């Protein structure tokens, strides 16, 4: 019994929050307690770390063998963390001469069987798009991190969510997708970094972690596992990798399909893969959807602010719910099944309405969709969200 004390506390607080007898701070207490419980059960280590570093640590724990990157704000903590910890465990770290070189190094490392990653921020990710398209076409696993900043152009270095279209619609040339995962918490950034490598290997495709400058720079306590050793390209589960053709026919890694009909076949194969992913890999967090009259829809840092507004509105007796997409592609369409035509949706973004289009597509006219967003360094406050909700209600 004594051993499961955190578990008992956890249940008690859950009940109290559900009953509305525990105020706002109960929610953060709940997360503290669940963290203590998990730490106790899985013998994890608790560390205080930024979102950028958490993604790097997640990559190390996932057995990332290779990292290449180019400095850009606001993701510099990530490249610095990799520079410090990759070489000491026999993994490859390269500061590339450009974003183009970095993404093409990832292509090469992945072709050689390594678990490979690069990271950047918005203008840098634009530069990487050609390489991402090649990685998708050559069916190589890779993890790409975009800690978004304001655009267009050089924009500024303030947090933003204005690369949603670029991330979820492919981004480069050709008929392709990347899986896009959007963490809202530093712990989730760590966890999704681990997941990204598994998804990339499973589907042999690029996976993007889409965060924003707030998440990248913010420090939070998280629980981490022991780091897996690097595979150094000796991955037996990758028979397609370039390792030298000893004892087998030569392998070729390419996206080029010149013969008549060959490129269509490659595209059909990709589309088939995307269909499976759409069915299997959509992720979201839903809150109070059972009785909500208005549903907030937000991802990443914006979702945390929306959640604070939701807590205050709930405590004031308003029937507000929330959908937080965690995978942006595939978009969690199935989360959008309103119980009646009277339910309204409020999409909140650090952009002027990009995810908004996916919500509208998912609802297909079945419910009213409102929007609240700011861009270029600004973001809607808790009060703005609450006022907007009250106005809609």
């Amino acid at each position: 019994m004594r051993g499961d004390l955190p578990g008992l506390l956890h249940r008690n607080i859950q009940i109290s929050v559900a009953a509305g007898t525990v105020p706002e701070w109960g929610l953060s207490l709940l997360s503290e307690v669940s963290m203590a419980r998990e730490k106790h059960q899985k013998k994890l280590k608790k560390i205080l770390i930024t979102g950028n570093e958490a993604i790097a640590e997640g990559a190390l724990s996932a057995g990332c063998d290779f990292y290449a990157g180019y400095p850009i704000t606001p993701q510099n903590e990530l490249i610095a963390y990799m520079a410090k910890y990759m070489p000491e465990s026999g993994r490859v770290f390269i500061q590339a001469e450009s974003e183009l070189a970095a993404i093409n190094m990832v292509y090469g490392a992945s072709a050689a069987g390594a678990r490979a990653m690069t990271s950047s921020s918005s203008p840098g990710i634009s530069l990487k798009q050609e390489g991402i398209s090649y990685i998708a076409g050559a069916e190589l696993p890779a993890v790409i991190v975009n800690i978004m900043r304001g655009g267009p152009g050089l924009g500024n270095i303030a947090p933003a969510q204005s690369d949603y279209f670029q991330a979820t619609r492919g981004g480069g040339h050709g008929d392709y997708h990347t899986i896009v995962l959007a963490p809202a918490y530093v712990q989730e950034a760590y966890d999704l970094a681990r997941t990204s490598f598994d998804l990339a290997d499973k589907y042999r495709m690029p996976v993007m972690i889409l965060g924003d400058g707030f998440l990248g720079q913010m420090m939070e306590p998280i629980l981490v596992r022991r780091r897996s050793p690097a595979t150094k390209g000796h991955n037996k589960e990758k028979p397609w990798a370039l390792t030298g053709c000893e004892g087998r026919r030569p392998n070729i890694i390419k996206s080029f399909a010149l013969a008549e009909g060959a490129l269509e076949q490659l595209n059909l194969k990709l589309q088939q893969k995307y269909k499976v992913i759409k069915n299997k890999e959509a992720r979201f967090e839903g809150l109070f959807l059972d009785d909500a009259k208005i549903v907030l829809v937000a991802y990443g840092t914006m979702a945390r602010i929306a959640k604070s507004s939701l807590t205050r509105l709930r405590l004031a007796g308003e029937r507000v719910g929330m959908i937080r997409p965690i995978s942006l592609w595939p978009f969690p369409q199935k989360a959008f099944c309103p119980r009646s035509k009277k339910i309204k949706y409020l999409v909140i973004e650090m952009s002027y309405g990009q995810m908004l289009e996916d919500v509208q597509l998912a609802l297909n006219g079945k419910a009213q969709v409102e929007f609240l967003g700011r861009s270029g360094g600004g973001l809607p406050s808790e009060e703005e969200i609450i006022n907007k909700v009250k106005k809609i209600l």
Partner: protein
Amino acid sequence: MEKIFFPPESLYDVPTHYCPGCGHGIAHRLVAEIIDQLGIREKTIGIAPVGCAVIAYDYWKFDCSEAAHGRALAVATAIKRVRPQNIVFTYQGDGDLAAIGTNETIHAANRGENLTVIFINNAVYGMTGGQMAPTTLLGQKTSTTLDGRDRQKHGYPLKISEMLALLPGVHYIERVSLHSPQEVLKAKSAIRQAFENQINNAGFSLVEILSPCPTCWGLSPKESLDWIRDHMQKEFPLGRIK
């Protein structure tokens, strides 16, 4: 009768797509013969460029990767770093290596990556129909320099091998040509040297090969070889550069 001359094991026995008189077929074969001689076929990883040699992997019988235009040395850097036990080389044209990929070329060389580079200089963009390349000679007519390359409008032929030789990270650079049997033999020995350097962990090695492109030069195969001898090698002198 005893058979003493065989096609290299590192080449598939298939016809190539190259034009009559093109140098790529010879260069491919030289690379394949050296890989056979050094006994490294089963641990070699080749990087094909974007350009005429884009499907070189259909001719070479060892592991190969495509690279985006100009990015072969970024791709090769990563493969070699992940798998230092393999022999990794790039095969790139002048547009790929000395125009769109100049940055990757200079930085891979400057890092002293232990790689072998086969650089085909034919003074034009062959695949796309003969536009001006960074290595196009002054006065040379191409589909984008109709009156010939003009130094005031287009700048000078880029001597990337000489530029790279200035970098301390570079171990070996030699310029060779395919315009006569004697020169082909010299080219073969330079290619061998460049691969041996990698085997001995000596560092970045590059062989620039002056190669004929009769189609885009508007010359017969024989005239093309003479053009290399009489014009091209004056701009790009043969021999060991570093």
